[in-house]
């Protein structure tokens, strides 16, 4: 792998990446059944707070968008909105085989088959469902990736925004959030 000027981090970025790696605030986009694996990960048994991770209330405050489970065309619009509200640097973690390749409902008219077509996914957690052990393990990987400066999905999204936009529009026609309850 060649290193070009863009990949070299300045000293302050290395320090900042240390802080970013050890304080991971997450926005859980709990659409599917995967949400049920988060409470044991958070509470006494697996205790994610010891790695500096924690849930956050709004996308503005969060660093990681954790998508647990199926995305339908309708929720994907909301996810893209949420992702674009987050502040740089931001990371996306796809959770479960449903975000990876569509899982068991790969042929449904309503569900996405691959998330990285629409958002820059830094890390996938395979499994249906991934156990809390798998979640902790993958977040350990994410921490190492951020520390080394390898988790650059947000930069990829900025640089290839046209491509992502095209995919989003192809599948969703229009990325908008408008329903009768918000009129």
């Amino acid at each position: 792998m060649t290193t070009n000027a863009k990949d070299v981090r300045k000293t302050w970025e290395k320090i900042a990446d240390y802080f970013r790696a050890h304080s991971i605030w997450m926005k859980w986009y709990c659409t599917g059944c995967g949400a049920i694996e988060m409470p044991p990960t958070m509470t006494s048994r697996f205790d994610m707070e010891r790695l500096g991770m924690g849930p956050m209330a709004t996308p503005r405050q969060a660093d990681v968008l954790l998508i647990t489970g199926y995305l339908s065309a309708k929720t994907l619009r909301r996810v893209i909105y949420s992702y674009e509200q987050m502040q740089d640097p931001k990371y996306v973690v796809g959770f479960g085989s449903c975000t990876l390749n569509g899982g068991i409902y790969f042929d449904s008219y309503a569900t996405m088959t691959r998330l990285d077509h629409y958002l820059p996914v830094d890390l996938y957690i395979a499994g249906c469902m991934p156990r809390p052990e798998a979640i902790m393990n993958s977040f350990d990987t994410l921490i190492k990736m951020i520390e080394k400066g390898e988790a650059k999905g947000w930069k990829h999204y900025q640089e290839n925004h046209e491509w992502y936009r095209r995919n989003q529009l192809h599948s969703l026609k229009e990325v908008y959030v408008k329903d009768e309850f918000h009129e």
Partner: protein
Amino acid sequence: MNLVNFAYGLLLLLAAFVFQTTLTGINRKVVARLQRRRGPKFYQQFIDIFKALSKGSTTHGWVFDFGVIMALGGIMATAIFIPFGPLKAVPGMDNIFIIAYVLAVGMLGMAMSASGSGNPWASIGVSRALTNMLAYDIPFMMVVFGLIFAFDSSSLSGLAAIQREGGLLGWNVLRFPLGGIVAMISLQGMLGKKPFDSFIAPAEIASGPMVEYGGRHLGMLFLLHEYSTFIEVSLIVHLFFGGGATVLEFMVKYAVIYTFLNLVSNVLPRFKIDQAVTFFYKVPLAMAVVQTFLIIFLGMGVA
């Protein structure tokens, strides 16, 4: 005011930040142990704050930006007036009235900024926060006026020195036990800890006033929170627990009170805002009235 005062003030701000943030980190660990978890590192709070400051952030108009800066500036300016044990950046200015007024600048800045974000959750949060403030301030200020009346002094370090003359029994919390209880309950409300944390309820109103803050703005908000905690707990330490003859004494008292409040907070559920107001206007206000009556008309507890 001269250059020495200025340098002293900056040093005090730094010390207050390091002390309070470490204490918050330790308290997160204490809470984790209470819940039978390992808990984060004790310096986790520093990592969180510096990370938030290292991130980018968006603006929602100049009111939003200016409000945060005004709030942080106001709170930091207030923190300078607080004596850190015997250390005082601006001697002779540690008056309760000055602190109460300058503190309001910070609170208003916060309310302005949060409302400026235009998010309905933020408006709900701000209105709840201000209602909460109105609820705890009245009993608290009533007790404080009683103290000022009793000792003819409104200087924090002066009141602390008077208490220290009487030894342990001279502490106001033992001389005026009703007032001490009111002050501790009010402090719980000031710090926004349970059961009075309905204005930041993360699951119900998406963390209230903080809903639109991210990155650098959120980092400043965390700084602000540390400083305002420092101011509020220090007030109680000086007014009711004899302040500190040495820096160490002050820090120990401060840490014990803060940890105690945190433990109380973690075994209680949350009041709705109307329940909180009703509670404050029923129990603590009645106790404060009785306490002030005892001080003014019977002179009980006044040496």
